[in-house]
């Protein structure tokens, strides 16, 4: 029998020597150039970190390649960030250029630190998820190809965090990102009446619906449920509890873009991302409509924002009415909230802009 409940390896066994010696004693840090920072300790110790992007979905050979670099320069240590970046750390400044050059040889961009676009947090999409309304890895690759220089160079006044979720379950901090792409369904579930009773508990299916759109089938001879289409907002919660309620649809599925969220408490409190574009159809393999609008928003933000201003802070300053006019994104009825806390978003002042 294997040992169970041993928990993860003790992190202390994974730390490089410089970190062990300076744990909790760091005094300050500086960003030296894109993707490179230096931490200085109260003991006088120094640590240089080189950060590189990764595609997140990687082969074991990719990990072995990166391990080779860590063995060569970093005494066999490395770490990952919560946004799937790789960080190679060394106390010797002389190693920095070698690390960068070896990472570049592997095809990995160095950057993502400071006032940059960092790697995109994302979900599985069509590669592995049963409820995906779109792919995630392909979208991320397409977006980062377009915004590549924003990762490798300082072109912004603040950090810009992008997230992609392949459905509105939003595995990842998509709901609080500067730019968020979210896979959405726009058609109600197609109920499989033959299979439903044998695969699902009908009361649980009915209870799973946040808007009460699901009820027992009106024909007593059919042991299944009915969906009141006009009350369905395509959350997919019924599908999660019952596989006989699929809502994927080649034409109905697509993407929405949300903007202006953040999690940091810096200056302004954390903010939710807000709807900018309600629906763009899936257009693989490159989703050009999505990358075009994201690039446009980033370019206008880069040009129009003030120093240190996050995207959400910029929008708060100029106002949503101006955001829509600057970006030429049409304002539609979908932008007006009609869910639980909708009234909190209605404007109750005569202060607005044209």
């Amino acid at each position, binding site marked *: 029998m*294997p040992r169970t409940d041993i928990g993860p390896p003790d992190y202390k066994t994974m730390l490089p020597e410089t970190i062990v010696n300076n744990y909790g004693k*760091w005094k300050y840090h500086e960003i030296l150039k894109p993707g490179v920072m230096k931490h200085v300790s109260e003991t006088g110790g120094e640590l240089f970190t080189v950060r590189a992007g*990764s595609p997140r979905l990687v082969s074991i*050979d990719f990990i072995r390649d990166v391990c080779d670099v860590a063995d060569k320069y970093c005494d066999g240590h490395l770490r990952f960030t919560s946004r799937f970046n790789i960080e190679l750390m060394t106390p010797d400044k002389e190693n920095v250029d070698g690390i960068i050059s070896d990472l570049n040889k592997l095809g990995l961009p160095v950057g993502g630190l400071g006032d940059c676009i960092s790697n995109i947090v994302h979900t599985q999409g069509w590669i592995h998820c049963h409820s*995906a309304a779109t792919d995630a890895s392909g979208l991320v690759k397409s977006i980062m190809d377009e915004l590549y220089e924003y990762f490798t160079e300082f072109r912004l006044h603040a950090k810009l965090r992008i997230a992609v979720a392949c459905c509105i379950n939003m595995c990842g901090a998509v*709901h609080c990102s500067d730019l968020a792409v979210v896979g959405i369904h726009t058609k109600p579930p197609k109920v499989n009446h033959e299979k439903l009773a044998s695969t699902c508990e009908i009361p649980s299916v009915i209870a799973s619906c946040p808007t009460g759109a699901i009820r027992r089938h009106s024909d007593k001879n059919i042991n299944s449920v009915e969906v009141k289409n006009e009350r369905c907002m395509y959350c997919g919660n019924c599908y999660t509890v019952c596989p006989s309620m699929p809502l994927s649809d080649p034409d109905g599925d697509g993407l929405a873009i949300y903007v202006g969220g953040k999690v940091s408490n*810096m200056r302004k409190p954390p903010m939710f991302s807000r709807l900018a574009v309600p629906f763009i159809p899936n257009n693989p*393999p490159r989703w050009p409509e999505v990358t075009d609008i994201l690039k446009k928003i980033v370019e206008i933000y880069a040009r129009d924002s003030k120093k240190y201003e996050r995207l959400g802070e910029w929008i708060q300053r100029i106002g949503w009415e101006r955001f829509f006019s600057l970006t030429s994104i049409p304002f539609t009825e979908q932008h007006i909230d009609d869910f639980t806390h909708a009234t909190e978003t209605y404007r109750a002042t005569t202060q607005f802009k044209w």
Partner: protein
Amino acid sequence: MPSNTPLLDELEKGPWPSFVKEMKRSAGKNAKAKDLLGVVEQSYKDKITHWKHGGIVGVTGYGGGVIGRYSDLPENFPNAEQFHTIRVNHPSGWFYTTKALRTICDIWEKHGSGLTNMHGATGDIILLGTDTDQIQPAFNTLSENGFDLGGSGSALRTPSGCVGPARCEWACFDSLDLIYDLTQTFQDELHRPRWPYKFKIKASACPNDCVAAIARADFTIIGTWRDSLRIDQSAVGEYAAKGLDIKNLIAGKCPSQALDYDEKNRKLTLKPEDCVRCMHCISKMTRAIRPGKETGATILIGGKAPILRGAFLSWVLVPFIKVDPPYAEIKQLLEKIWDWWDENGRNRERIAETISRLGLKDFLKAIDLRPIPQMVYHPRSNPFVFF
């Protein structure tokens, strides 16, 4: 010869590293990875997912940690019919030795597709793609090598935290040690789902919240301090000499106007009682300004994404708590919260939704916390008050 995956091939072009290249590297020596390419290419043609819903698979003794996954195209891609995921609990802070990483690679070369996520959104190492009969052998070998599974289903999910004192001067508590300790303490809650829904714990050691704990964790621990931030006036002078516009870009952007800058004497003064510890001045003048010395954390409750009732950010529960081993106060608080949620939560209801349905007042009573102004932006405006 024409390619079998013309759509995915497009995603090998361009400067950003390509996941398709990675899939092809695995496909060169692994039949499961090869058929995965076919399944995904089909999705790119059909514009829908080809993964079926669910499937109960796992290892002996655990109720979670493995996600069952089956393709709906088994005839065309028989090697990818079963493509289960194993979640492996990561070491705190995502630090590794190359030896440990190579061990995982070797295990996954033998028992799986050779494809992984470093890492999944919750923090685990995600080993993507194996057959049912390989799950137990893969787990046995992982366990022999010191690795355990993470959480899945209606359980405690793998706790995760920021890089903390390992490499950050702003850490107000030891996020690595706290996460490791909580993970070890709550192994049963992690591996044996028995709650209304999932429960996530995340720790960020300062208000910059690098792991997005406030948005993603049901139980959010964010480092802060209770005394005054520390200012080194000679370093302030150096920043001024180098041309930093301290008046407008630092003091001028202080959200609570707690900072005052005397340009003539190059002196920055703080009114500590007005400071809301937002990190702006600290983050922009790393050599001159630091968090205070009386450090600890704010504990917040209820962060989550939209399903079911819309998204919530975590709400303040304990404005300040000391965070020192053995973390007894935090563990007791967690157990009280879980008891109440177990008793009152509905199926598939995150704790934020249970609190929002039943009211913060009742929740506070159940976990023995006194209401204080730090918990709300403002008091109610309506007169409908229960006494």
